[in-house]
């Protein structure tokens, strides 16, 4: 992994980030739906003067580019603006919600990988066997059931019928780990189910390709048993491209997290976004969505770098000494 490659990728990501912030900002500003009118309620009863003043106080009457400029520079200095609704700094609204969302995302990812990777490997050890069939069916289902339906199904089974798990709420991991686990179980499982399908599919296909490669025949020819051949030789080769899919699913996760947090009343960025959306609180929205986009772009960056580190062939191509 040489410096030039790293720098190049970093610059590309930064440009992407900048462009994304531009898109978010512009989309929110040029769309109809004036935050001011929402704030003040019924427009007809309000004095035009008051409207104008409110607009001015939020800087909404300045040219678009100027608004964007001050927002962007504000971001760098740590000033994320103030909520149109509550006048609170956006930070105080946003920061406490970051960890719950991160926690949920990580839990879902871990669950999905813990299920999908071993399942795909086992399916490759015994193609067309029982596990292979079961696993492909689950994958197929996972892609066809929207996350909110899975969530409801889990709630019906575990909260309504069995009364085992609570269906809403949040408690910090530090304060009460047991309860935290109880509360995170269903939302994490729901998200995990949605994203394990593409991971499973891809890993399975990747393994199929790897096991058809000549070096697998060499490994078997050395006297290794087939299960060992798959686990030791095919899996590392199959995992590397699967990284890409995992990176992509983070994007899917961030989308799904919005709906799932809403259903389970999980106090993360998703619920903040839904709240802000109905109130048209653009100040909050633009930062929250930017945060999500940043998370995604950073993830893809990390995956690219991991790729470079893990694959010995790429290490050479990107400039490391042989």
């Amino acid at each position: 992994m040489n410096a030039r490659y790293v720098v190049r990728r970093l610059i590309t990501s930064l440009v992407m980030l900048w462009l994304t912030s531009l898109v978010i900002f512009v989309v929110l500003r040029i769309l109809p739906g004036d935050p001011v009118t929402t704030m003040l309620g019924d427009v007809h009863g309000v004095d035009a003067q008051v409207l104008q003043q409110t607009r001015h106080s939020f800087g909404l009457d300045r040219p678009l580019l100027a608004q964007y400029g001050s927002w962007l520079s504000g971001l760098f200095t740590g000033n994320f603006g103030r909520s149109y609704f509550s006048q609170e700094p956006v930070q105080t609204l946003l920061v406490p919600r970051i960890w719950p969302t991160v926690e949920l995302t990580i839990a879902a990812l871990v669950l999905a990988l813990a299920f999908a990777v071993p399942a795909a490997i086992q399916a490759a050890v015994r193609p067309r066997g029982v596990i292979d069939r079961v696993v492909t069916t689950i994958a197929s289902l996972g892609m066809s059931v929207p996350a909110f339906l899975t969530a409801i199904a889990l709630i019906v089974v575990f909260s309504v019928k069995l009364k085992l798990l609570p269906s809403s709420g949040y408690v910090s991991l530090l304060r009460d780990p047991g309860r935290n686990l109880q509360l995170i179980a269903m939302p994490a499982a729901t998200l995990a189910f949605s994203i394990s399908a593409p991971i499973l599919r891809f890993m399975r296909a990747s393994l199929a390709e790897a096991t058809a490669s000549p070096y697998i025949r060499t490994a078997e020819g050395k006297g290794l048993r087939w299960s060992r051949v798959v686990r030791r030789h095919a899996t590392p080769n199959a995992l590397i491209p699967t990284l890409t899919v995992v990176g992509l699913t983070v994007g899917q996760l961030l989308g799904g997290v919005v709906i799932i947090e809403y259903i389970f009343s999980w106090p993360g960025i998703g619920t903040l976004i839904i709240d802000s959306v109905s109130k048209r609180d653009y100040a909050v929205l633009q930062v929250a969505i930017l945060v999500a986009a940043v998370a995604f772009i950073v993830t893809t960056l990390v995956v690219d770098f991991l790729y470079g580190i893990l694959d010995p062939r790429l290490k050479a191509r990107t400039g490391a000494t042989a």
Partner: protein
Amino acid sequence: MIATSGVSTKTLLEVRDLSVSFRANRNVIEPVRGVSLDLPRGRRLGIVGESGSGKSLTALALMRLLHSPARLGGQVLLDGEDLLTLSDGQMAKVRARRMSMIYQDPMSSLNPVFTVGKQIIEAIRIASDVSAAQARSAAIEVLGEVGVPEPSRRIDSYPHEFSGGMRQRVMIAMALSGDVDVLIADEPTTALDVTTQARVMDLLSRVVAERGLAVILITHDLGVAAGFCDEIKVMYAGRLVESAPVDSLYQRPVHPYTEALLGAICQLDADIAQPMTTIAGQPPLPGALPRGCSFHPRCPDAVARCTDEAPSTVHLGPARFAECHFALERAAMSDALTSGAQS
């Protein structure tokens, strides 16, 4: 060539009527049909043929590296034990300790994400119970033996950091890790340039001699086979159509196909005004074999009988046979010509 049972040179590997078949939709395709051979200890056997003759499949079948949907028939007796009846676990042990194989494409036959050392050490530790340290020094030693320079450093290199010839040496090193008795080499030099080819074949010759290995060399290159093998079998359309000691084959070929192959060898002193000799036509696909003798559409000496009746194996001497209706006559002619030329 029937092995006389027991006695001093006990046949190490006996293949009886080996067949490989696939079921495609409703048809059955048999790319390898009834191959039989005997391999005594220390013998170097060559199997030559065009692409598609089934020679690589035969090699893979011997090692049982062909999986479903391929189905194997016949017997493969290693020291009297039929490999085709062994369990997967038992066969794995055979591959580790008694038979090994090197493959034709060194580029893709080594795992790209593991160092060369790791892969050789893995082979060593499968074959015998040694510590990691012992395995590592054994690996360095065998790398040196196959001619890899600076083995203690290169042992930690990745396959893509080696040239094609070096990779093939690594493969040979890996194949020699267990104390095997039989080495199957599937077109080991096809992917290499001519000079590297020669060096790798020299290396192979040396290590085989040092360890007294029995070798089956699969190749389409008659020159390579001539330089290495004691005995040659010619394969066409899934069957062995001729077998002879190497000198007999090259000087007194019997089967029309062998004759044609030898005739098609490019002579450096040939008249360049004349077109190069080729064998007319294409080898048949396993699913569409001609009736009767499978070579008859391309045979310059074919007669009506060749279309109707498949020839049986005709034994022509202690180590020779050919599958042709006119084998005896052709052998007699061939011998007469040679002795005539010699006198």
